[in-house]
C-alpha cells in the first residue's frame, strides 16, 4: 500500500512537472507570437509579423528605445548616404511629384534574402513610384555581399541616418512615402515581399502592389472579347434583347 501511494505521488509530481513545462512553453509561444505582431489591431502600422524577432540569428537589429512600429502619417526624411561603391548621393522623397517605396534591407539578414530576390525579379509597384533599397552605412554592412545582392536597375542607398530618421525597427522593413506631402502612407514588415505588398495595398488602397494592373489588363482582355462577340452578333443581325437569343422553356422548365 505504501509503495502504491509512493508510486502515485511520484507520478503526480512527474505529471505536475510536465504540465508546468507545457504551460511555460505555451507562455513562451504566446509571448513570441505577440513579439511577431500577431493580434495587432488592423489600422496600426505593422500588420505583419516582425521578422526582426524571428531572425535572432542575425543579431540585434532594433535600436534600444525604438518602438516596434512607428506611427503612419509622420513626416519622412530625404535620403543622404552613399552608393554601394561609396559615392555620395542625396535623394529626395519629400515635396516631389513621385511616391517612393523605401525597402530597408541588410546584407546579413536571413529574411532579407527573399526580399533581395523578389526585387531582383521585379515587383509590382504603383505607377510612377520609385523604389529605393536602404541599407545601413557601408561600415556596418558587407559591401561585397551588397554588390552581389543589389538588383539591377534599383537604387541602393547606404545610410544609417535614414534608418534612424524613419525609426526603422528592424530589417526587412518597407515604407511608402507620399511624394507631394512627404508623409508616410504605409509601412511594415513581413516574411516575404508578397506579405509586405498586401500590407502596403491595405495601407495605401493601391492594388498595384498586389498585381492590380495585371488584373486590370485581364479585365480589359475580357472586355475586348465581349466587344468582339457583340460586334459579331450585330453583324449577324442580333440586337440586344433579340428574342432569338433566348431559348424558350417548357412550363416545367425544360428546353423545348
Amino acid at each position: 500500500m505504501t509503495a502504491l501511494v509512493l508510486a502515485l505521488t511520484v507520478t503526480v509530481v512527474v505529471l505536475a512537472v510536465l504540465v508546468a513545462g507545457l504551460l511555460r512553453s505555451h507562455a513562451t509561444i504566446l509571448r513570441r507570437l505577440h513579439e511577431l505582431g500577431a493580434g495587432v489591431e488592423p489600422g496600426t502600422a505593422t500588420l505583419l509579423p516582425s521578422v526582426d524577432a524571428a531572425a535572432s540569428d542575425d543579431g540585434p537589429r532594433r535600436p534600444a528605445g525604438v518602438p516596434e512600429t512607428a506611427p503612419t502619417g509622420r513626416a519622412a526624411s530625404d535620403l543622404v548616404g552613399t552608393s554601394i561603391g561609396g559615392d555620395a548621393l542625396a535623394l529626395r522623397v519629400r515635396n516631389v511629384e513621385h511616391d517612393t517605396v523605401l525597402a530597408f534591407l541588410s546584407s546579413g539578414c536571413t529574411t532579407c534574402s527573399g526580399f533581395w530576390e523578389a526585387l531582383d525579379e521585379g515587383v509590382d509597384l504603383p505607377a510612377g513610384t520609385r523604389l529605393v533599397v536602404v541599407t545601413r552605412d557601408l561600415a556596418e554592412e558587407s559591401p561585397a555581399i551588397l554588390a552581389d545582392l543589389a538588383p539591377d536597375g534599383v537604387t541602393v542607398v547606404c545610410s544609417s541616418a535614414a534608418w534612424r530618421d524613419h525609426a526603422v525597427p528592424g530589417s526587412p522593413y518597407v515604407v511608402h512615402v507620399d511624394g507631394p506631402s512627404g508623409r508616410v502612407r504605409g509601412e511594415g514588415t513581413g516574411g516575404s515581399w508578397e506579405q509586405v505588398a498586401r500590407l502596403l495595398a491595405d495601407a495605401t488602397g493601391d492594388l498595384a502592389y498586389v498585381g492590380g494592373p495585371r488584373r486590370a489588363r485581364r479585365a480589359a482582355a475580357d472586355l475586348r472579347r465581349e466587344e468582339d462577340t457583340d460586334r459579331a452578333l450585330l453583324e449577324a443581325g442580333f440586337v440586344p434583347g433579340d428574342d432569338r437569343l433566348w431559348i424558350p422553356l417548357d412550363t416545367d422548365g425544360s428546353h423545348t
Partner: protein
Amino acid sequence: MRLSSHGLSAVLPSGWEGAFTTAREAPAVRTAAGVTTRAVPSLPTLHLANFALPPDRGDFGSGAVDVMGARHAFVSVLEYGPECVGTALFSEAGLPRHLTAGDFSPRALQRTRSGQAGLQVFFTEAGRAFCLYVVLGHRGNAATLAGEVSRTLANVTIGPAA
C-alpha cells in the same frame, strides 16, 4: 540637403537631388571643335536633377535624359585629368553659374532628343579641369529651367581636390 565629395559640394535646392559617381571607364568626348578628350577613371562626376535620378546613368546623363519630363533639368559636372588644366579647351575660368535660355541649344546635346536643349562648357576652377553639361527637358521651358539650373549651380562650390 548638402552633398559633398572629392572637393566638390552642392547645397541642393528644394526638389533637387544629386549623386556622385566615380568613372569606371574613361568616356571619350568629342567637342564641337573636333577635339577628343577623355575623362580619367577615379575622377568624380556630379549629377544633379530636379527629378528622380535613375540608378543606371552615363556620365552625360544617358539613362536619365531618356526619362526626364518637359519641366525637368539634368546637370552633370565632370572632372577631367590634371593634364587638361591650362589647355585651350578648358581655358574658361570658373563654373558658369548664371545661365540664360539663349545658352541652350539642341545642337549641344550629346544625343538629340525631341524638344530637349543642352549646354556644354569646359572650364577650369580651383586648378581642376571640368565639363558642365546641362540638359533641359523642353526648350519651350528654357527660360524657367535656366533660372532653376542657375540657382542650383550658384550653390555648387569647387575646392582643391580632396
